[in-house]
């Protein structure tokens, strides 16, 4: 960058969610195995009760909502986020829609490649 001044600007991907070109294969697959997941109303009970979420930037509601919108599938971000999940199942106890969130968490781990080898099938 010789000869160019650094004005402090940087390039980054747009923030707009593009629902027209979303790859929703993961969301479709998950909805097939955990059908109640579709009934989520984003109340945030799961995230509020999550012991991991109290200390690290892990938000289960946000994580699976992102999958629903097919966000960041390409960056394979989900497994690294899910390392914080303790699989304690507290989220499942508070879900008003009765979504098996612990099972959903395991399914997400299994269906995203890094964890396929680590987590045994249930």
């Amino acid at each position: 960058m010789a000869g160019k001044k650094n004005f402090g600007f940087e390039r980054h991907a747009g923030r707009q969610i593009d629902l027209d070109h979303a790859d929703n294969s993961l969301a479709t697959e998950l909805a097939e195995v955990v059908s109640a997941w579709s009934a989520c109303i984003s109340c945030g009970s799961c995230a509020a009760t999550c012991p991991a979420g109290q200390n690290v930037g892990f938000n289960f509601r946000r994580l699976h909502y992102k999958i629903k919108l097919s966000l960041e599938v390409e960056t394979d971000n989900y497994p690294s986020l899910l390392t914080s999940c303790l699989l304690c199942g507290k989220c499942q106890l508070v879900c008003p829609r009765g979504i098996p969130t612990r099972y959903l968490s395991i399914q997400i781990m299994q269906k995203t490649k890094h964890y396929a080898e680590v987590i045994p099938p249930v």
Partner: protein
Amino acid sequence: MLDGREYRITVIGAGPAGAAAAISAAAMSMEVDWYDKENRPGGKLNDYHQLFPDRATADQILADFDGRTDAIEIKKHFGTAVNRIETDNRQLILLSDNKIVGSADAVIVATGFDFFDARLKEEFGYGIYDHVITSPDLEKILKTNPEDLRKEGADPVSIAFVHCVGSRDQQAGINYCSRLCCITGIRQAIGIKELFPSCKVVNFYIDIRAFGSGYEELYREAQEKYKIQFIRGRVSEASENQQHRILLKAEDTLMARPLKLTVDWLVLLVGMVPSCTQVQIDNHQCTDQETGFYQPVNVFTGSRIAGLPGIFMAGACGGPMSIPEAIASGRSAAMEAWQYLKDR
């Protein structure tokens, strides 16, 4: 046994509330004159396809009303719009375009509502783009010819619904919630999915207000069984692309990120506003200054229109109301009218 034999009552409006009021008044042996501006009874029910929450057809309800109103003594004056009532001592004089058409001891006003004129929300492009329609438009399409939703023979790829159009919107001068658009949008979205299972259906909502019996269950069914996507955020603008598809911009407020989506049809779930054919009663201001709907003497206990003895209101002329609520309110107005006439 309620005997109203010597009472003459007029019901204005032949929608569900007016029909229920007329049937109930006649069942109490009152002499009933029943008016509607249209030539047939049923009001907006005539244009509806299915009803929530059980998705009974509107035709079933209409047939039920027809059967009951035919089986009982009711004088029908359809095609006559009563638009003025003058009080003359204890007599109520009914006028249509300044011509006296009748008189009564008591009147039940059941003039219903109009749908919000979606052209006023110009950002959604209703009346500008062919593929932007309102919920009553879609209802007519579903009832008469759902094939019209195909484009050159192909199933629609995606359809979006926008909740709260002309409802909870100070820009439109409407601060109240119309309450029934949410469940209408849910039911219509299911209808679309049944016709076109592979179509992506997205509802843009602010809050889901599924307050009635069975409504929440239908909402859940829409999510879980029909995979209808609910996005929390209001569409801010719609525009048409060269393929005549509608490009939407909204914010997904749960992600705090802007979002775009292109759809084949955009359906605006329009709110309920006061009817343009309200009845003027003497020179009274009997509607709410802010909402324009009729005001009862007491919102808890009385359906008499505020300040006017002998004139009662029923159904959605008093504010947004579902069909079962309108029917119940028609019945209770008839009962109150009877009590008023007995006690006066």
